[in-house]
């Protein structure tokens, strides 16, 4: 119960930051960070996949309602929550991290960066494809995915570094 309340509070803060601040950024005309996925990245390793997806859906839908993109952020977040355990196990073995949530401290710097980068890239790829597919400009899409992912990753690492 207490964990749920804390997580809900974190979610509201992340959604507010996303809606009022980050959505208005468009660095070099192509980089918009989607920091809210930090909540999904930081879920405990033994969190049940169903619960993780429901949280991700709720958060994605909130971001969607605030940015007039119904369904897009929700779809990308649910996908991220679904594949996250697989991505995590690519870089972090079950022995080294049994409980708790992945972070710079618990998984080591290299593994965490690889995990966060892969997850961010997957999420942003689906998000940008759903958002901008009609634009019909493959180079522009790839640039937007790469630039936005780099921006998000930088923000995530910054926060992680402060928490360490």
């Amino acid at each position: 119960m207490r964990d749920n309340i804390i997580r809900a509070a974190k979610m509201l803060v992340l959604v507010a930051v996303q809606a009022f601040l980050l959505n208005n950024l468009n660095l070099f005309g192509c980089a918009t960070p989607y920091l809210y996925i930090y909540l999904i990245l930081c879920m405990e390793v033994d969190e049940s996949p169903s619960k993780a997806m429901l949280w991700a859906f709720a958060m994605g839908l909130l971001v969607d309602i605030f940015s007039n993109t119904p369904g897009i952020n929700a779809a990308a977040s649910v996908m991220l929550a679904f594949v996250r355990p697989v991505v995590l196990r690519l870089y972090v073995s079950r022995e080294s991290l049994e409980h708790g949530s992945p972070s710079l401290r618990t998984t080591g710097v290299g593994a965490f960066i690889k995990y966060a980068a892969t997850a961010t890239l997957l999420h942003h790829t689906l998000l940008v494809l759903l958002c901008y597919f009609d634009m019909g400009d493959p180079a522009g899409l790839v640039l937007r995915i790469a630039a936005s992912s780099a921006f998000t990753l930088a923000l995530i690492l910054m926060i992680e570094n402060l928490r360490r």
Partner: protein
Amino acid sequence: MRNIIAFLARYNHWLLFIILELVSFWLLFRFNSYQGSVFFTSANRAVGTVYGWVSSVNDYLGLRTANEILFDRNLELVVENERLRTVIDSLGMDAGAVSPDTSFTTVAAKVVNNSVNLLDNYITIDKGRADGVDADMGLVSPLGVVGIVCMASSHHALAISLLNSNSSVSCKLERSGYFGNLKWSGGDSRTAQLMDIPRHAEVHVGDTVVTSGYSSVFPEGLMVGVVSSHGFSPDGLTCEIDVRLSSDMAKLNMVRVVKNKHAAEHVMLSDSLKRHRQ
């Protein structure tokens, strides 16, 4: 049967994944295909109110520039007004005899949320049905046309920004009178494209683009932008014109909703025409 239940129990998160994704895509396609419910947008009451708070802070910070722009625009209009008055006088007519166009009225509104970096951008304003704002009304900033209202809740409304792939505004070149549709297909937030202008039309960089008044949404002659460059479409039949929008879509604050008193009549006529053709 037991196997199916065991299978579902083991892979229930797969099922949940598929259901949640289906719901997301349903929301996405229903919204994009046509006006969905206002509830899942920033024009719903709770979200609109929160954006209202945030924007009142932003407005305060941007007051000085907004004031300067309004002052400039006001001065321009005063000069224009004087010039027209002299022209009317020189024609030997009484300016008072020219009756004003009363078919359009306006409602002042404040932009509470707006984006320019998506492919389908929307503008949320703080006026809704209770203030007489409804779908298919035009949205105009002090500097020019910015969008068309697509749905309204009781106290907020959502407008399709000019920067939306579904936006289409009937415009004309003020000098030559050739008309076409203003569209946007992503990219620069200061530039939109004027399509369907015939190839033989004479177009110059710097020509003014205004609304044509052919639809019931905008009256004729509202400022849209100026021609920044022009070329021909791939099939060579029409011109493709880049229009630099006169209003900076990234800095919208106070806008006016344009209501056409005769919109219902207009729609009825075109509907009956459609029925007649069938």
